[in-house]
């Protein structure tokens, strides 16, 4: 069954999450297999021209491609769907605490162009709870449909945009401990590609993205809060990196796929070395890394139709 909800308000969700963090929903050694969380669907009135403009200013500055395209960049659709993701993850039956959840990866298939001011239906599911060395991983899938479609019976061809966000609930082992040897992700021997760009991120980069996306997760906007959540200081939004990586590269007619996998978080303020490599015709690989520490922040891929 799909539950229809109102488009959640992110800031109240974060307030609730802060309270919820005090009590764990489940005991840390709980091991429930086949966890099910009821999917939710919400209506979105459409992304406003103002938000598109704010997004463009943030990522493109004066006169980037965004100014000339009508269709929305796919990260902006993610931004539209994010409150629904959060609504699901803060629902009573979601087994992992919201705050302190780590964004591990994102995969998006952008099937069709989406224009501003187009009403949308956003269907969000939690799937594939699985064990991780540090806790429990879950995939939150997001399907974006136009208005008027029955999301429970909709055809794939009616899908506008679909994405999978993989999160890790640290310290909550609802799916048990991983079996066998699962080593830390190997950072050793990372040989950076030849950089093609450099991102110079100021201390306000998190607040700037929050202003556009509405995602005021304290870990991105406040050093104190970030420290309370186990970071050394504020870190950039993962999707900021995704947005910047994709800026000017997405086809307006859509039909493309992209993914990003996050490794070390980007501390703010900070500098990210960035490289684009053409893997094959229509496929680009992206790498973001810290040159000083020789640590990778993320890798990404874009496959054009």
């Amino acid at each position: 069954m799909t539950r229809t909800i109102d488009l959640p308000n992110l800031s109240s969700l974060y307030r609730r999450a802060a309270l919820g963090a005090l009590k764990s929903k489940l005991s840390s050694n709980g091991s429930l297999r086949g966890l099910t969380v009821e999917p939710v669907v919400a209506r979105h009135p459409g992304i406003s021209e103002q938000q598109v403009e704010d997004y463009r200013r943030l990522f493109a500055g004066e006169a980037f491609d965004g100014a000339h395209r009508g269709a929305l960049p796919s990260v902006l659709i993610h931004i539209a769907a994010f409150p629904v993701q959060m609504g699901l993850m803060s629902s009573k039956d979601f087994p992992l605490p919201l705050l302190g959840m780590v964004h591990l990866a994102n995969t998006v298939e952008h099937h069709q162009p989406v224009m501003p001011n187009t009403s949308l239906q956003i269907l969000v599911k939690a799937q594939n709870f699985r064990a991780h060395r540090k806790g429990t991983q879950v995939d939150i899938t997001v399907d974006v449909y136009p208005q008027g479609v029955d999301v429970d019976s909709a055809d794939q061809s009616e899908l506008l945009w679909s994405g999978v966000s993989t999160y890790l609930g640290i310290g909550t082992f609802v799916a048990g401990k991983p079996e066998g040897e699962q080593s830390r992700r190997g950072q050793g021997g990372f040989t950076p590609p030849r950089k093609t760009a450099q991102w110079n991120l100021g201390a306000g980069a998190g607040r700037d993205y929050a202003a556009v996306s509405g995602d005021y997760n304290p870990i991105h906007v406040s050093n104190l809060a970030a420290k309370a959540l186990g970071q050394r200081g504020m870190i950039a939004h993962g999707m900021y990196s995704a947005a910047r990586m994709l800026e000017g590269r997405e086809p307006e007619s859509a039909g493309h796929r992209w993914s990003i996998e996050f490794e070390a978080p980007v501390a703010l303020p900070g500098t990210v070395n960035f490289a684009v490599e053409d893997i094959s015709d229509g496929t680009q690989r992206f790498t973001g890394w810290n040159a000083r520490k020789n640590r990778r922040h993320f890798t990404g891929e874009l496959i054009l139709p």
Partner: protein
Amino acid sequence: MADIRDAVIIGANRIPFARAHGAYAKASNQDMLTSTLNGLVARYGLQGAQLGAVAGGAVMKHSKNFNLVRESVLGTPIASNTPAYDVQMACATGMEAIGSLANKIKLGQIDSAIGGGVDSISDAPIVVTDALRGIIMEANRAKTTGQRLKALAKIRPGHLAPQAPGVNEPRTGLSMGEHMAITADQWGISREEQDELALASHKNLAKAYDDGFFDDLVTPFKGVDRDNNMRADSTMEKLGKLSPAFGKDLGDQATMTAANSTALTDGASAVLLGSEEWADERDLPKLANFIDYEEGAVDFVDGAEGLLMAPTYAAARMLKRNNLSFEDFEYFEIHEAFASTVLAQMKAWESAEFCREKLGLDKPLGTIDRSRLNVNGSSLAAGHPFAATGGRIVATLSKLLHGKPGKLGFISVCAAGGQGITAIIEGR
């Protein structure tokens, strides 16, 4: 092109280039350009002359200088009915101004012109944050005091931090030096060859000054009578001691230092052009003809090509159009944005693979004879006030070619945004 008349380079003037935040710290772009034009007017007796056009520009420009060249012309004895306009093509601004004016002369649209450029790092515009600008504009639009105060009340301390002018490539966030470090690494340009080129630039420039070569090309300004970045006493040992300034993440492979990269400088230059008839009418010298020029641009954003390699492409097209090869040139002036820029361009022209794959040529463009390259010094020694470099190069090359009728000179100037200009000048 038989019906097209010659565009004659008559002469030039510039002020000595001065290291940023030094001798010209209190001079504006308009001060420097006006002084340069005044020197040119004095050298060629142009007081009261109505010219066809004066064009030029500045890369770093205040919004109040929206009409920089026109305002500068009004501050000189050039007749005030001389039209003037601003041109901007990053470091190729001066070349673009001169080249396009030469074309107008060739076409008979105008008979005389001054092209040039000016730049000041010391007097660069400082801009407020977008947020503060938004608030100020809102307050400006407000109709009542209350609305205005409400808008102004939004100002937060963070808004007040000034934004330094962007010197990084907007699309990559990389400084020009970082871009060049990547290209230098790709082409395997060694530290030693870069230092050698830098040393030669200083020695050549110093010798040219001592020989009086610049007596009729430079007019002092604010007590500076020679480019003050010039270090005549430099040695390979001294240059070798410097640590890398760019491409530091290449570790041991980093080769670019403050000495084999151009220093930030302030300065201005201007070149006087005219038709043959105009020059004769006014009894003016005819140093050289401006034959042709070509603009180039490359896709550097995702690293497909080096930021400063556009001149390699422009050169290939320009040489083909004029049915010329490098052997046909007496002198080469390749703008030393960085020593490695010159070396990478020359290696590219020597590379069969590059010339085939990128330039679409059967064979390499060939080797440039070092004894003909930047013989009177270039930007590493003189400095590089962005828009002023084109005028400096055209002036030096024209004078070198004067008295050598038919001998050709080649110019390459790279520019930000992956652009560049190449040009051909013929002595007379």
